[in-house]
């Protein structure tokens, strides 16, 4: 118990002191997971929309693949990305293994199916006639998609939160493709593991608490946006 309290105290101390190392680890966490989430939204939302509204051969197959992808183990993704990115792999010439870029790629692969799957579900639960009504009002295809997405904004925001949640707390893939290199690819989750394995439980707790606060703050913001749309 004293560890948790001690960790809390240490956390506050580190933040107040603006401890350089902790700040950079935190910012890197935000940067990597934030970018990965934004990228996964850019990929996943259009994909989800197309799968929900479109009708083309292979649609069913892709939809099942997306749903399967939601349960994809992150370490598996990490392993595959590592093999692709290491020096002698097909993309070795990019030299991005053990950089934040590789972590962003891995996290994006993890989050995209989650975002796509939830977007697809969100759009599919809209009244199918709504699409016709919007078109009948004179919408072109893009206007129609935009209006439908606005109608589904509550579950869409849930998809965003789910995507972010999936990657900010991710550790297996981040460890593998990032290498947990101090000052370069160490993020809150991997740093916590490191400090724990060193026996520095206090520090580990401090980092965990910072991570929790971060996740909470972001979710509070997103939830308030989501719930504001839901007026009585």
């Amino acid at each position, binding site marked *: 118990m004293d560890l948790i309290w001690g960790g809390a105290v240490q956390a506050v101390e580190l933040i107040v002191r603006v401890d350089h190392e902790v700040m950079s680890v935190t910012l890197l966490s935000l940067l990597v997971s934030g970018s990965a989430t934004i990228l996964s939204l850019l990929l996943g939302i259009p994909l989800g929309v197309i799968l929900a509204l479109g009708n083309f051969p292979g649609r069913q197959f892709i939809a099942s693949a997306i749903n399967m992808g939601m349960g994809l183990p992150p370490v598996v993704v990490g392993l595959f990305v590592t093999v692709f990115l290491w020096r002698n792999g097909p993309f070795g010439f990019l030299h991005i293994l053990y950089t934040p870029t590789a972590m962003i790629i891995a996290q994006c692969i993890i989050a995209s199916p989650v975002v796509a799957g939830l977007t697809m579900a969100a759009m599919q639960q809209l009244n199918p006639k709504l699409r016709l009504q919007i078109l009948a009002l*004179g919408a072109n295809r893009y206007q129609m998609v935009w209006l439908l997405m606005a109608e589904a904004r509550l579950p869409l925001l849930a998809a965003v939160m789910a995507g972010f949640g999936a990657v900010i707390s991710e550790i297996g893939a981040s460890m593998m493709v990032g290498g947990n290199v101090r000052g370069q690819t160490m993020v809150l989750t991997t740093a916590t593991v490191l400090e724990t394995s060193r026996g520095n439980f206090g520090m580990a707790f401090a980092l965990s608490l910072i991570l929790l606060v971060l996740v909470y703050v972001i979710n509070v913001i997103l939830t308030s946006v989501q719930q504001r749309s839901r007026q009585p």
Partner: protein
Amino acid sequence: MIMSRKPAMLEVADLEVVRGGTPVLAVPHLEVRKGQTLAIIGPNGAGKSTLLLAMALLIKPSKGKVWVAGEEATPENSLRLRRRMAMVFQEPLLLDMSVAENVATGLKLRGVGRAEREKRVAVWLERFGIATLAHRRARSLSGGEAQRASLARAFALEPEVLLLDEPFSALDAPTRAGVIADLLAVLRGTRTTAVLVTHDRDEALALGDDVGVIIRGELRQAGPISKVFGAPVDVDVAGFVGVETIAPGMIQTHEDGLAQVRVGDRLIEVASDLDPGTPVFLCLRPEDVTLQTPLEPGQERMRSSERNRLRGSVTDVIPWRGQLRVTVDCGFRIAASLTYRSVSEMGIAEGVAVEASFKATSAHLIPRVESPNGREGLEGE
């Protein structure tokens, strides 16, 4: 069948829609005249909504063409033509925003400026009597209020053609009457061309100038309401437009424009051009049948212009659409429509002997063709 003297605002030709290998709609030709309301009626599942969606350019027919204001619809001009029309569905299909924002939606999509939008929204909210609901969230509206909002949204676009797909079916009777009245006033006031799909022939009668009857995916008859309702071309149409007496018979003789038709063991006189020897169906609307109870002693019979008088007895009395439907068996069944008061004044009840009479010009004959599969043939167009 062409009925235009005014130019056609909306026209379809050789239209066919096939779904999953089965044809669901086949319409050789149909027009909507400018400023008129075409009611499309038929039983549920007949394909009326499909026809409307094709006219609205919202679905692509498997075959056939659609013209809007004389311009043939193609994939390139589809959006532009769609923006000259508006459509209202059975459900209000309002978006999750305020009523005013909903009514402005179509205008926004079409790029109308804010000042103009606000003006039109205010006008049309007022016209449909929901101005006080402008800032309420659409979700919180009752059925009637929501449908009014949907209508306001469509009219705010000042469309050249308004398409309505059973817009009142989800409303309860009193609300429905109110909304229909509002719509009628607006249609007359704006002289908008309209196409109304409904399975309720009273709505068609109230709102329609022309009517088209769709049964099992086929357009059976189209034309001015009086003609279609008065002279249906086949039994299915007859049944649907409210002809409740349909009895098989045979034309015996014909003179002076009057045909003598044997129905059961009675001889009926009907104004018709058909030749003797033609098997027919006798069609009568219940409103055109008058009932008389036998004369009291001392009552004189007066001469009547109704050439057909048949004695029979009442088999049942059923309430129907605010009146009473009295069925009389006079060798064949005749249905008459009476008010409650008449029924009670005359003492009409099951088993009572009555005389049913109707004019030769009220009855209508449909040629009857006995085909091998038993299905009655149609009069060709």
